[in-house]
Structure formats: C-alpha cells, structure tokens
C-alpha cells in the first residue's frame, strides 16, 4: 500500500489562505466548513539587554493543515460506525456519509481539527486528498493553487526522502499521537510541538 501525504513549507508560507479557498471552491464548502485550515501561530515579548535597553522577539508563522491521513488516525479509532475509514489502496482517510451518524466523536478525537461537521447534511465531512484528481494524475487543488509553492503532495516515502521527516512544529501536536503522513519544513521562528511561548491567534478562523 502506498501512503499518500502532504508537505508544508512553513518557511515559505505567507498565510495567504489561497489553499483554503481553492479547497472550498473545488469542494463547494459552505461557511464554517474548512477542509484546509491555516493556523497562525504567534508570540514573543520584551527582552532586557545588559545595558538596560529593551528588544522584542515577536514572531509569527503559518501552518497550513488539512487532514494528515495519519498512519494511526484518532478519528477512525473513535468512529462508532466505521464510516470514518482509511482506504486500503492509498491510505487516505475518508468518511462514508451514507453510514455516518453525525455524532461528532471523530471531531473530538482528531488533534488536527480535520473532521468538519456539515450542518446541512448532518454528517461529518473532511479532506479526501482530492482522490478524484489524484486518480487523473493531478495534485490536490490546494497544492496547485499555492502561489508560494509551499505545498506538495504524494507518496509519503518520496516526500520524506525529498524533504526530511519533521512533523513536530507548534501548534501541531506531538506526531507520536497519530503518526501523521505529513512533512514540515521549519522556518527560522519555528517552535517545537508542545511550545507554550506562542498561541494560535486566528482561533475564530480555524
């Protein structure tokens, strides 16, 4: 089985959210449903120098996250119906909306906020890795829309060979929890997972 996954270059990302909007457009998502979310992580304070002058170390960076199609997904483990499942052939985690009961337990369990409740259909929805596009040999719409070329998608082995294995950057959780199929590139301000010096500042957006 190949496992497909995402690469996110947090050094390049400017937080423009074109990926998020392209995803909404392609998948016709209403307000309140974001299959891809851009978390803005920021912090910093004043530091006192030896000579009594002050200097700030304010930082901000962006992590664009959809679903990481984890090797050990918390959502499928939680799901009481099996509607949330991992596809055999490409490892994508998708939800069968004909089986889902809309209990929202997957939403509670996923540490990346990937499962999104569709209030009209009363069932869960989430990033499906644009598997229809992938089958046509294209990349997911978020990847192709990125003006900074900060995103990539493909078999996770190839992504790891090309970009490394980093996946533990704040505000994302420790990758040992779900083993996400995700490779990150750290920017110069990147903080490790579990960092408490900053916080997500666009909470109403994600």
């Amino acid at each position, binding site marked *: 089985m190949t496992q497909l996954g995402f690469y996110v270059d947090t050094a390049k990302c400017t937080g423009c959210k074109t990926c998020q909007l392209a995803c909404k457009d392609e998948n016709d998502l209403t307000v309140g449903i974001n299959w891809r979310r851009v978390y803005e992580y920021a912090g910093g304070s004043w530091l006192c120098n030896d000579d009594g002058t002050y200097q700030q170390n304010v930082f901000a960076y962006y992590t664009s996250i959809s679903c990481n199609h984890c090797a050990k997904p918390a959502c499928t483990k939680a799901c*009481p119906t099996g509607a949330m499942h991992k596809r055999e052939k490409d490892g994508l985690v998708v939800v069968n909306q004909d089986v889902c009961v*809309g209990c929202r337990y997957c939403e509670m369990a996923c540490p*990346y906020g990937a499962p999104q409740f569709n209030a009209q259909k009363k069932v869960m929805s989430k990033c499906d890795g644009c598997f229809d596009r992938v089958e046509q040999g294209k990349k997911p719409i978020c990847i192709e829309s990125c003006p900074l070329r900060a995103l990539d998608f493909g078999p996770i082995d190839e992504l790891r060979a090309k970009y490394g294995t980093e996946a533990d950057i704040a505000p994302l959780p420790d990758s040992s929890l779900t083993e996400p199929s995700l490779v990150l590139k750290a920017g110069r301000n990147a903080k490790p997972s579990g960092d408490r010096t900053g916080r997500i500042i666009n909470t109403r957006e994600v």
Partner: protein
Amino acid sequence: MHELPLVFFTVLAQGTVGLFLVLASLLLFNQKPERKRVLSRFMWLVLALLGIAGALAMTHLGQPLRALNVVFGLEHFSPLSLEIATTGLFGGAVFVYAAMTRFDILAKLHKLVLAGAMGLGVMLVLAIANVYTLATVPTWDSFWTVFQFVLTAFVVGLPMAALVLRAGATGLGVYQKNTDRALATLGFIALGVALAAYPLYVFWLGQVDASLLSRFDYHATLILTRGALLSAGLGLWIIAATRGNNTSVVVSAVSTVLVLVAEVCGRIFFYDTHMLAL
C-alpha cells in the same frame, strides 16, 4: 454548545446508575418480602430515567435514524460504541430484574441478576469515562475525568435515592428513616470529597494549559455556581436528615434538583475544557 444533549445524558445516566446502586445494595442485603416488593418496584423508575437519558443522547446525533450503525464500531472497540452497548446491557439487566420480581419468575436467581446489573452499572460509568479519556485531548485524558464521572453518580444518586424512598417507601417505616440517615451520611462524605477535590482539578487544568481558564469569561461563575448549588443542595438534605427530618419529600426534591443543576453546570465546564493538543 452542541454537546448540551451529552451534558444531560452523562449527568442523568451517571445519577441513575448511582440511584440503582443504592436500591440494589438495599435489595441485595434484604430478607423481608415486603421490603423487596416495595424496593424492586423502583426499578421501573430507574429504567424510565435511563430511557430519558438515552433519548437525550440520541438528539445529539445528526442522523438519529441511523443510530443502529453504531454496532459496526464494536468491531474496532470504538469507545462510543462500547458506551452505547453498555447502556443497552445495563438497561436490559435492570429490565430483566424488574420483570422477574414483578411476575415472580425464578426467585432464586433474583439476586444473581441483580448483582450482574450492579456490575454493568459500574461498567457503564467507566465506559462513559472511557469515551472522554482520549490521548489526543490533554485536558480530558486523565484520572480526573473518571473521578468526576464517578463522583456524579454519588452526588446525584444519593439524594435521588433518598427522594425516591421518601416518596414511595414510607410504608417501610423505620427502615426508610434509617436508610435515609445512612444515605445522608454517605452524602456528607461525597460532598466533602467533591469540595476538596474540585479546586485540585482546576489547579491541574491550569497546569495543562494556563490560557484555558481565561478563554471563556463565564467559567469562573460556572465553577462557583456549581460549588454553591452542590453545597446548598446536599447540605439542605444532609442537615435536615441528620437532625431527624427523614420524611419531607419537598426537602429531598429541592435537594435533588439543586444537585442536578450543579452537576449540569460542572459538566458544561467539562465539555468547554475540550482542547486539541494543537
């Protein structure tokens, strides 16, 4: 908040298990047929309360008509499927016991079925806690979740049991009065544990994430309201009961309502503390 049906379900289900365990303990160590007749009648009330709790939980589903799909999750031990299955098994066992005693079927097996139902009741409280102790939710993945859910079974179950006995078992005379006093003593201990442990829980939450407690401006009010209502509710009944008033239905009813509201406040706070490790 969309979890409100779950707030009511968890509080009511835990309280009902508490009520059942009190009644079942009395039945288990009882030899007199008259007491057994009166006490086992209350099992229908336990079933009704459990039914209401279950119906409330159903309203949380986006697609309640597909509810039976939850059996598929048993295959991979989904905590939610296990919780729902345990609720069903517990309700089934209570029903079997109620029916057996009502129609006097296989009298020698009554206590065995009752003990089985007690075991399932305890398992139900633990199964509910198991749903929320998720490794990916640091504020829930702790002993405090189990502790709170077990405590609810006590602080709701005890005054509810006293109320039920005052309302429907006064015919048992001094037995009802003595039971009421014993329940009040247990209630006093439960209140002490609740009041001592809750500040520790809130301190612990602050350790997990210092910003958590300032995220909602009504949280301080919610926590204090819970403490005040719990103390007032249990206190009213305990003080009256230990001073000799073991029959007033009104006092017990007011107590039970106050405690239920207190636990609902506490549970709303619990659901609000949901945070992603993110």
